[in-house]
């Protein structure tokens, strides 16, 4: 078993979930409350990664990270090396790839907060920021947790974007899904199966925890 790939995958997923947990909030807030008439275009943009083949997304991310794009050049100037085929590049690609899995549950739960509570908060003198942290966010915790867990699990299972952006460098960009692919290519079905089972188990346990904890009525299922 390639434990290095596991460690790398978990690191990547945790980092992406963390970044999306911060970055996703203002985007979701805007999607839930903006009255801009072109908002639907932005919503479509955010949701694109759900429907696009990961290779398409990965291809453009690769171009954007490469030395010919402003982002890639800027990174090169700052750090002295290219973004493509690095762990940082993988993080950026994964953030874009998993963005809807964080933003959509966040926005959906923000939108279900009773508008009268927001009005009450405003008449009591609270700014929008304070209203967000004192009212909207506390009432959206289940949606927040769901978004974090989905983006974590989704990042853990990604394949195409990683392959396009990161390649297959052990310890740097070789994640579990790439590792499984390699093993299958090498006809090593036994270790491919072992690794796949572990990934399967982790994802299943994680999602069960999320849906279990988010239940309206909290009971032990075996009682």
């Amino acid at each position, binding site marked *: 078993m390639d434990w290095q790939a596991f460690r790398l995958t978990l690191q990547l997923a945790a980092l992406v979930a963390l970044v999306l947990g911060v970055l996703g909030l203002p985007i979701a807030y805007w999607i839930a409350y903006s009255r801009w008439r072109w908002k639907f275009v932005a919503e479509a943009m955010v949701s694109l990664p759900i429907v696009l083949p990961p290779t398409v997304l990965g291809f453009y991310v690769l171009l954007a990270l490469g030395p010919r794009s402003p982002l890639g050049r800027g990174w090169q100037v700052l750090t002295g090396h290219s973004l493509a085929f690095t762990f940082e590049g993988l993080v950026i690609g994964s953030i874009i790839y998993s963005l809807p899995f964080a933003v959509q549950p966040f926005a959906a739960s923000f939108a279900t907060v009773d508008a009268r509570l927001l009005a*009450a908060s405003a*008449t009591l003198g609270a700014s929008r920021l304070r209203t967000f942290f004192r009212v909207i966010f506390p009432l959206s915790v289940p949606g927040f947790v769901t978004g974090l867990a989905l983006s974590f699990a989704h990042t853990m299972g990604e394949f195409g974007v990683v392959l396009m952006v990161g390649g297959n460098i052990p310890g740097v960009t070789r994640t579990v899904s790439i590792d499984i692919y390699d093993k299958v290519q090498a006809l090593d079905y036994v270790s491919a199966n072992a690794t796949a089972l572990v990934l399967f188990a982790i994802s299943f346990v994680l999602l069960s925890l999320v849906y279990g904890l988010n239940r309206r009525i909290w009971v032990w299922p075996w009682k």
Partner: protein
Amino acid sequence: MEDQAKSGNQEGHEGTRRNPGAGLSVRLRKRFNPDGEFDLLVAFSAPSGITILFGPSGAGKTTLLDCIAGLTTPDDGQITIAPKALFDSARGVNLAPQARRVGYVFQDLALFPHLSAEKNVQYGLASLPADECRRKSAAILESFRISHLRARKPREISGGERQRVALARALVTDPCVLLLDEPLAGLDAATKSKIIDDLRQWNQAHQIPILYVTHTREEVFALGDRVIALAAGRILAQGTPHEVMTAPREETIAQLAGFENIFDATVIAVNQDRGTMTCRLAGSKVELETPLVRAEVGGALRVGIRAGDILLSTLEPHGLSARNLIPGRMLSLTQRDVMMVAKVDCGGVEMEVHLTLAARDSLALQPQQQIWLVVKTYSCHLMAGS
């Protein structure tokens, strides 16, 4: 400033008034929605004390409160809490809700479900130092008798207690005006009047204008110093509860005010010396003695009689002071909650009479039965004819 306040005291009838100029004045127009059937178009002022906003649902009461609180922007007009302008379309003033210092108790209360009663009350005090905030919230919880509930969440306390928490949350911020949107709907009369007493007590010290929205007649008489009757976005009448509710000039208010019986009538005699008139109800031979209003013989009027003001007798009554005895025939008798609604044919006009269940049982009332209705002169309310 001191001198002004003193001269204000002498003019005003409320001796303790703290800031005599600080009334609310509103003049605004608000289109309901792009293809809305009516605009909200109102102008009124409310001094300190309770002003009732009375009207049926859909009259625009909540929209009006939202405009004052800054949650909805009027199309044009002015909203002022003297001397501060909250909204003035001509000068481009439109303060954010946060800057208006308007206390608002919503119809559904809008308590924060994830915060305890105490945290709800302290929500509007964020700018104060922590000990000051605790002191103020403790004081208001005390004066609204909910100190013992401070650690409970809104869903863990009763309806009446929730209303108290909502009131305390709005009042603890020392608002310049208080808006109450049917805050006591669904409470029993005893709980209601206790909360109102506490509110009045609070306002003795603070003297702010309170706009109290309701659509029930009983509350108008129980609470109001002043009433504004609102229907379909317009103010129909304003004044004391008695002025607005008992002598309605418009049929819409009459229906609001609970006149189940409204008839077209013609004046057939005027008795200046006795202060009464005789009116015949259109389409019948029923003649009613009514209070005198300025009208001429042959003039058209409307007469409103509350169903609860009519007595019903199974025998022809004698020796009564009431001047109007109307023979009739029972058409139907139906139960509504704990009340009986009788429809009576009085020879061309149908009258609705409300009775208690006990009255029905002791009189053994039956449909088609011959009965007499008794109506006092002063139970006949006159309004302009159509």
